[in-house]
């Protein structure tokens, strides 16, 4: 009992010990904050990354893809059984995106993916990242009237309104141009020279190939209407659209800040615009295909790598265009099969089963789980978290040495009292437990304060970031870099428990040595101590 009495009295009269515990508090608070933010980031990234691909992705590296996906799926279902609850097939092909923007041709390298929105949505979060609220529920490749991305002023007109507007303007321009040319038919060359001058490098570089496509068509598949020339004749852009395409938002926009520091997106193309895509055909004798699509929506997953690479088109459209249909049997080919597994299924086991069935020696297939695909990124984040944790625990260990020094001083200061207690019959164990429980108390007080402080910080982290921004004028959390509007945080109770136990443990360890010294003290020498 005297242990606790003395322990509390020492705590109350020796504030210097509380000072030594502040470093523990700070260490614990930092650990809580860092872990919450890191797991917030990691979880957000996990979500995003997982949302972009099915649990298991089978990629076929052959340009023609793998024929008969239904047969493959049946075979996979046979070997994996009930674990597969969803599947989607798609065609993925590298492509060049051409956007006409104010008379200039803008070219972007994209990954063109032909998909079926319904099944694709069942294996990954595809619709979720679209702009139009209805497409988020039920994605289609049809241009909508409007109402894209409520809250985004830049896209206020997107949809049919925008399309009719630009078509109208273009027709007016064409008319004026035609009138002008009719007025001075003697100088048709100079007009072209002016056009070339207006459309500098890009326009010059791209226009020949576009022109080639405009020229009497090379039609690989007579079934597909991919000759823009023939299409334009039959299609009224006022009322009709080309096959729909959903562009990754960064393929057709740049993000910048205006003078007031607000983030603004500038769109080269928005829903309603027409864009061109060039991509290789599937035939053995690969040719470049050129096809016009109408942008029907934008895709924003906030993973810059994806947003700047993806262009989604209807699966059938792409299969037709690339000639991925066996002319004799009508069997279609795909390049990618994505599988969704039942919750709790062992991804790696399923992957290995499929790999065994389609061994890489025989098939040009690459079977991966979504984790395999994102492995380097995920493990980098994991490593970063681990290293930060180690570093921060070192900070608490440093605090432990502070406690050690303080406690040694207190033991020396209390030497005479220790002698007195021994003269009164206190055991060595009892005396050492005074100091150990002192350490435990300080550890709990320190880490408790740190815990509360850290949690409060995490709770208000975005407000705090705002205050720091105001104070320093520096953006703490730049949405143009991170694509998060707010700092994501996740507080994991288990982490809190570990951090607290670790901090208390270090405080206890640091108090054990001085306590042992106190216990071993010779009573007579302690009593004589001046």
């Amino acid at each position, binding site marked *: 009992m005297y242990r606790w009495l003395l322990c509390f009295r020492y705590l109350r009269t020796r504030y210097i010990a509380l000072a030594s515990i502040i470093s523990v508090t700070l260490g614990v608070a930092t650990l809580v904050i860092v872990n919450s933010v890191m797991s917030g980031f990691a979880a957000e990234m996990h979500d995003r990354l997982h949302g972009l691909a099915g649990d298991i992705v089978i990629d076929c590296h052959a340009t023609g893809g793998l024929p008969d996906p239904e047969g493959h799926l049946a075979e996979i279902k046979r070997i994996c059984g009930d674990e597969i609850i969803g599947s989607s097939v798609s065609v993925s092909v590298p492509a060049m995106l051409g956007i006409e923007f104010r008379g200039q041709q803008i070219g972007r390298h994209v990954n063109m993916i032909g998909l079926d929105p319904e099944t694709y949505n069942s294996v990954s979060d595809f619709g979720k990242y679209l702009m139009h609220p209805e497409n988020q529920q039920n994605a289609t490749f049809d241009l909508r009237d409007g109402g894209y991305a409520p809250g985004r002023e830049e896209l206020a007109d997107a949809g049919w309104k925008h399309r009719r507007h630009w078509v109208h303007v273009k027709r007016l321009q064409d008319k004026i141009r035609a009138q002008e040319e009719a007025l001075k038919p003697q100088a048709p060359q100079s007009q072209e020279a002016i056009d070339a001058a207006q459309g500098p490098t890009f326009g010059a570089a791209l226009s020949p190939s576009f022109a080639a496509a405009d020229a009497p068509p090379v039609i690989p598949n007579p079934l597909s209407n991919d000759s823009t020339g023939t299409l334009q004749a039959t299609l009224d852009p006022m009322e009709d659209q080309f096959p729909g395409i959903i562009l990754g938002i960064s393929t057709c926009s740049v993000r910048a800040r205006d003078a007031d520091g607000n983030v603004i997106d500038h769109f080269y193309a928005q829903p309603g615009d027409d864009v061109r895509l060039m991509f290789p055909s599937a035939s053995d004798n690969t040719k470049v295909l050129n096809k016009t699509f109408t942008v029907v929506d934008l895709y924003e997953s906030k993973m810059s790598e994806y947003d700047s690479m993806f262009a989604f088109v209807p699966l059938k459209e792409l299969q037709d265009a690339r000639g991925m249909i066996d002319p004799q049997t009508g069997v279609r080919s795909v390049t990618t099969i994505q599988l969704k597994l039942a919750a709790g299924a062992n991804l790696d086991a399923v992957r290995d089963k499929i790999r065994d069935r389609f061994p890489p020696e025989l098939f040009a297939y690459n079977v991966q789980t979504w984790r395999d695909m994102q492995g380097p990124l995920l493990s980098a984040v994991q490593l970063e978290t681990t290293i930060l944790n180690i570093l921060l625990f070192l900070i608490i260990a440093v605090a432990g040495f502070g406690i050690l020094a303080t406690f040694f001083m207190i033991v020396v200061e209390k030497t005479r009292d220790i002698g007195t*207690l021994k003269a009164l019959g206190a055991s060595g164990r009892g005396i050492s437990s005074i100091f150990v429980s002192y350490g435990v108390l300080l550890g709990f007080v320190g880490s408790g304060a740190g815990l509360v402080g850290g949690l409060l910080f995490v709770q208000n982290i975005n407000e705090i970031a705002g205050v720091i921004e105001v104070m320093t004028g520096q953006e703490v959390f730049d949405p143009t870099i991170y694509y998060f509007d707010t700092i994501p945080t996740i507080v994991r109770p288990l982490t809190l428990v570990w951090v607290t136990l670790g901090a208390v443990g270090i405080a206890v360890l640091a108090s054990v040595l001085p306590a042992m010294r106190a216990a071993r003290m010779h009573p007579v020498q302690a009593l004589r101590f001046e």
Partner: protein
Amino acid sequence: MIHSTAPDQIVLSARGLRRTYHKDKLAVPVLRGVDLDVETGKVTALVGRSGSGKSTLMHLLATLDRPDQGEIYFQGKRIDNASRSQRDRYRNADVGIIFQFYHLLPELSAIENVIAPAMIGRSMWNYLGQRRQLQQRAEAMLDRVGLLHRAKHRPSEMSGGEMQRVAIARALMTDPKLLLADEPTGNLDTETGVDILKLLSELNADDNLSILMITHDDEIAASADVCLRMQDGLLSGKTVPRRAA
């Protein structure tokens, strides 16, 4: 010296105690075979020149230190080589120890200082169960030394004489058989010292408490029942007729 007293009248006895301090290669023999008997219910004074080894002997008797040779018996039971916990219990309950410099715990109030030995001797639950009685006993002890009104005061708020009284109350808390006092008045003025001595002899008379007291004051020594002299590491002594003057 050999006593003719019956064994049950001896509360504490020592036989052939030797204690030598070693500093580097120099050996300082302080006790060279001390024999001692403290009679039950008597005040025994221990005098001797400074540095003669009185405190050293006291520490051995209180089991705060161990003799190089010799034996110590408390009520016939050997205690110098008893187990650690037995010695702890002996110091806690069987003897009360008073020092020249009081040695109160500065963080505790007077009453808490008095209760401290009771706390030390009990487990927490035991203590909490008997809290009220112990509190009452501590108050009674403080009252005995005339300091009940200062119960809430810290040692730093008290005079030397008051602190020594609190120390006496603390020594009495566990109802010991024997009081070991190392110059209890050494740090006090004569008048206060006389008060303290009066208190001690009252305790001796009323409670039949045995007292072994180191002192430099010949007058005090003369008023004791037995006066022992420490010289050259040995004890010599004579019994004084009780309250002869």
